[in-house]
């Protein structure tokens, strides 16, 4: 087990929906040696890459939060409800556990508020500011200036339905 993996997902052609990808790209530029993966969505193929990591951080846009929020990701009890077209962070963690027998010690979902998700590649100013905040949080984590536990305490958890 070593290191932190950062996975940013979203559709960069739907404005703020690409916030997770944008944040991950910035992190990759700032930390050239960091283990950063980007994509439109999570895929089972990503499981192997994170199976040997100590911490994994998922970055994604969200319309259910108004501030950058951090949630702990735990694997679900069973495979029910998951499909290959829409792999969720907890579903991916389940794959990691089942296929490789070891999972990251900590998995965090960092949600970045999205306000404008129409067609286009330019994100809204509000979401861009949130991307800055997200990158700062993850950068502190990568530099060892904070821990997942502290992030979970400091960043608000979005309200669930």
């Amino acid at each position: 087990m070593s290191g932190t993996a950062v996975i940013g997902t979203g559709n960069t052609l739907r404005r703020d929906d690409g916030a997770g990808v944008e944040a991950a790209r910035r992190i990759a530029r700032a930390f050239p040696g960091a283990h950063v993966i980007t994509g439109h969505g999570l895929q089972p193929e990503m499981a192997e890459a994170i199976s040997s990591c100590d911490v994994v951080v998922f970055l994604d846009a969200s319309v259910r939060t108004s501030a950058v929020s951090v949630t702990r990701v735990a694997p679900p009890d069973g495979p029910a409800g998951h499909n290959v077209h829409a792999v969720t962070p907890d579903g991916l963690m389940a794959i990691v556990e089942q296929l490789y027998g070891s999972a990251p010690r900590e998995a965090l979902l960092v949600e970045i508020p999205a306000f404008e998700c129409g067609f286009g590649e330019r994100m809204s100013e509000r979401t861009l500011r949130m991307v800055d905040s997200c990158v700062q949080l993850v950068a502190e984590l990568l530099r060892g200036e904070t821990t997942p536990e502290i992030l979970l305490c400091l960043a608000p958890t979005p309200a669930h339905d």
Partner: protein
Amino acid sequence: MTTTAKTITISPVTRIEGHAKITIHLDAGGNVADARFHVNEFRGFEKFCEGRLMWEMGGITSRICGICPTSHLITSAKAGDDILAVAIPETAEKLRRLITLAQWIQSHALSFFHLSSPDFLLGFDSDPATRNIFGLIARDKDFARRGIRLRKFGQEIIEVLGSRRIHTPWAVAGGVREPFGTAQRDRLLAWIPEAKATAQIALATLAGIHEKFARDIPNYGNFRSLFVGLVAPDGALEYYDGALRVMDGSGNIIADKVDIHRYGELFGEAAEPWSYLKFPYYRPLGYPKGMYRVGPLARLNICDYIDTPLAEKERVAFKAIAGSAGTVNNSFYYHYARLIELLFAVEKAEVLLHDPAMLGSSIRARAMINRPAGIGASEAPRGTLFHQYAVDENGVLTAVNLIIATAQNNLAMNRTVQQLAAQYIDGNTITEGILNRIESGIRCFDPCLSCSTHAAGQMPLHVQLLDTAGRVISEVAR
């Protein structure tokens, strides 16, 4: 005895790429009178591409789909080559061939391991909540892990060549943007032994599936049709270039060495009011008699041989299924043909990776607009893909026509649904297992509706039994 006509609706069809529904129409006696595979999404790429520059088409059309963007990219680049009137450098062609094989590997692995094998290994009647790749992981970790890694190998080739796994803009009219290096080559070569072994394990697993489902298989779209695809000049299995061959359902070649520029003479497109997916047909036989199939089953039927040893050995076994019929006409054997192609793609990728020409530095021919129109064709995982563009003197598109593999299988998919429905639906009992068998008939073709019309995502299965007045008689949802 049932005395009222009914319609059974399966909406959406699951574990395919895109959205669709199936309606099964029962007569007053409860017998299947008709069955239709409806594609109810529309995106209209052909129209909104008009007015864009020809050079942009690789990037635009690869956005049609997240599964086979590379096929659109390559076919678009080939249409661009035609407009420029250039012969691309040898290195560029070989690199394009490699990425086309990578597309086959990742897509065929997805189709078998992620989408179809859960039916076969977990059972048609197993809990639909776990009848997926996750359930497969729980049942056989090694098999699932191998499938995931094989797909990853295909994705990795695409990423190495194109800098990203999907929607890469790497191929352009005249060639490709970036060359290939020895470090990249060695990284990919390291995958070959495992990939080859996994393809062979999949074939062995499928052989067991053939035995297990021996009673079901004869009902899976078992009918004569034409088969269409590209073949190499010497008749070998082709995936990137070649000429069109048309074979009838008895193994007779009825058109051969047809230049792709003549595809419009051979194939027409019909439309039905109940689907956005067009119904291509072979013109000389008219609609709908000119039904034809494309993709792995067609390619394995029409080619004379495969130029890699392990896949060729499997092709011979595949052709033995045809016996005196001349062609393998049962759609279930799409799976077998797909896995043979998967093995071929790995073997062929190995050959290419050892080819010194892959490391050349001449990768792009540059030219101005030299023709007012161009056509590109290649074998996408699901079948022959055509891109036809017309441009003005500046390269601005004035017309776009995309003939997608899934659409070309439309008539055959409908026929398959009809056959399965007639076999399993008795008008009174509709079980989850029966519905899944009908869906799995569609999955034989591995349709990509995102490409052919287009949609994304997945919703729960919803089935309704309606009487002639539209009243819901019974309902099943998951």
